[in-house]
């Protein structure tokens, strides 16, 4: 069984999913960051595969992508860095990135590598559902990968049901119409949207992302979903930390309320 499903089945509290850009702040930091996240008690890890033109991302993640690329990060190097992943990290791992580097690596070869190192799923925001179903689903499933889809406040009910039908693991609920890191906090309007989705009886659980930055917004989001995703706030921490391991563990414990 895919580790992602297990996490949702066994969870006793809200699920915390943290995004970290691979090869950031230093090229060789990827595994250190993952291990520290696990030690802090994170439930799911999203590793960002850097891309030159990340249109769904705000400034913080864009910059981390560019720094990582400038330091020499590539898809091939990332898989190399992750080769002992499953000796050290047991939490589910998703790769998040854009479709072009995956296409150039070769879709099947990419999926095979994911399975080899123990990646559980993918988030590719510019791979839309129709393309996924027509061209990618079969290969992703062959290698046991869950593809995570996004929904937004503008997504129509009919489409949400379609997305729910092809989704496995969870649905990524974008909290507001925005790129990553644009706004923070959760408004009453957003709470209404969260409730509306909650009442749709979807088969997949939801995690809420975009604009979640601290314990307060994490708890608020988690009250209307299975948990939440933190990206930009964590990348900001990575950018300024002088003791990665200590700061990461403290960050996760603070959010989860286990410190």
């Amino acid at each position, binding site marked *: 069984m895919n580790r992602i499903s297990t996490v949702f089945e066994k969870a006793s509290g809200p699920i915390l999913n943290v995004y970290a850009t691979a090869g950031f702040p230093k090229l060789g930091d990827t595994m250190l960051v993952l291990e520290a996240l696990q030690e802090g008690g994170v439930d799911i890890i999203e590793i960002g595969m850097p*891309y*030159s*033109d990340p*249109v*769904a991302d*705000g*400034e913080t993640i*864009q910059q981390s992508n*560019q720094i990582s*690329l400038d330091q020499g990060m*590539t*898809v*091939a190097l990332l898989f190399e860095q992750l080769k002992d992943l499953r000796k050290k990290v047991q939490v589910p791992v998703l790769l998040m990135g*854009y*479709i*072009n*580097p*995956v*296409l*150039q*690596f070769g879709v099947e070869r990419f999926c095979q590598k994911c399975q080899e190192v123990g990646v559980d799923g993918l988030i590719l*925001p*510019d*791979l*839309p559902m129709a*393309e996924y179903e027509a061209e990618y689903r079969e290969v992703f499933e062959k290698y046991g990968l869950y593809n995570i*889809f*996004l*929904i*937004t406040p*503008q*997504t*129509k009910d009919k*489409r949400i049901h379609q997305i729910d039908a092809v989704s496995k693991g969870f649905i990524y609920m*974008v909290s507001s*119409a*925005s*790129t990553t890191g*644009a706004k923070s906090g959760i408004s009453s309007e957003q709470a209404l949207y969260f409730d509306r989705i909650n009442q749709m009886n979807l088969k997949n659980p939801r995690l809420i992302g975009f604009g979640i930055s601290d314990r307060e917004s994490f708890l608020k989001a988690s009250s209307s979903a299975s948990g939440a995703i933190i990206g930009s706030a964590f990348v900001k921490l990575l950018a300024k930390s002088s003791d990665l391991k200590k700061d990461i563990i403290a960050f996760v414990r603070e959010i989860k309320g286990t410190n």
Partner: protein
Amino acid sequence: MTYQVDEKGYYGEFGGAFIPEMLYPNVEELRTHYLEIMNEPSFQQEFHDLLRDFVGRPTPLFAAKRLSEKYQTQIFLKREDLCHTGAHKVNNTIGQILVAKRLGKNKIVAETGAGQHGVATATVCALMGLECIVYMGAIDIERQAPNVARMRMLGAKVVAAQSGSKTLKDATNEAMRHWINNPVDTHYIIGSVVGPHPYPDMVARFQSVISEEIKTQLMEKEGRNYPDYVLACVGGGSNAAGAFYHFLDEPRTQLIAAEAAGQGVGTGHSAATTFLGKSGVLHGSRSLLMQTEDGQVIEPYSISAGLDYPGIGPMHAHLFKTGRAHFYDITDEEALDSALELSQLEGIIPALESAHALAVLPKLQAKPQEIVVINLSGRGDKDLATYQQRLKL
């Protein structure tokens, strides 16, 4: 073989709509409505009235006698440089703003490279009283200063794109991000035949007025409704798409595209996508794309800001792949020479972009009785600083 888009939004293997879910409602709304809107008689009426009375269409098809003599063939210039605002870009912005209004949008966002599309967008926004934000690469803001001033004078807000290479590609990223953040009241007016379906097809249809007029004008002047060659420069490919459109299925017409080779295809400072690109996804469609082995987009280079783009529209990738269009790589130097030549032989100062199309002439070897139509996509006013410097004027 068809050169038109299919119902899934593809030209052969190129095209599609690779967009994040945040953009899906907007793009889907456009996809399901654009043809219906464009076919409404009231839309057609308004579009053509504005093209005539505001843009100044039809633009002339000018028999360039001295140029023809020099190259020993019959050369006609399609004078898009005479369009209001100075380039073909306005054909598309007029069309799109009318679509935006019918979709109930009251704000417009656009990207721009040379500033021509930005000016054309700011112009139609002023005309229609809609709010306008234009993203422009920080480097382009410097090298196309007159157009920045024009946009501001027209009431648009010009925002510098500071990410990546700080040119057209990054301005496009920023415009897309702006649209993601403002999905309800904003329409994104893309400036070329790029982006997710239905943009390439919609923009090509708006620009197709160019070849529609060429057909009629050639019939009047030469008694035949097709040329032997149509030449156009390709940045994203909108002026070329418009100039080719009604000849796509005319086997007697050879379609010739000029790409910016910058300092030369092999120098690492180039924007010649069909020579240097591979199939990939950027800005919502699958097309030919200049990229590293790892799939990172390569920052292009051209002296011409309007051609300084790492991709081409999916329609052109298909025309290239099928061999329907022939692509030439034109260096900065060749374009500059041709700009000077046209200025002094015909009294027309072309845009640097259009000069790339002119620079195909010495390589074409057209026969004396053959008809060559060159799409003169824009005028050179915006490029005077570059001409002054590079031609030592």
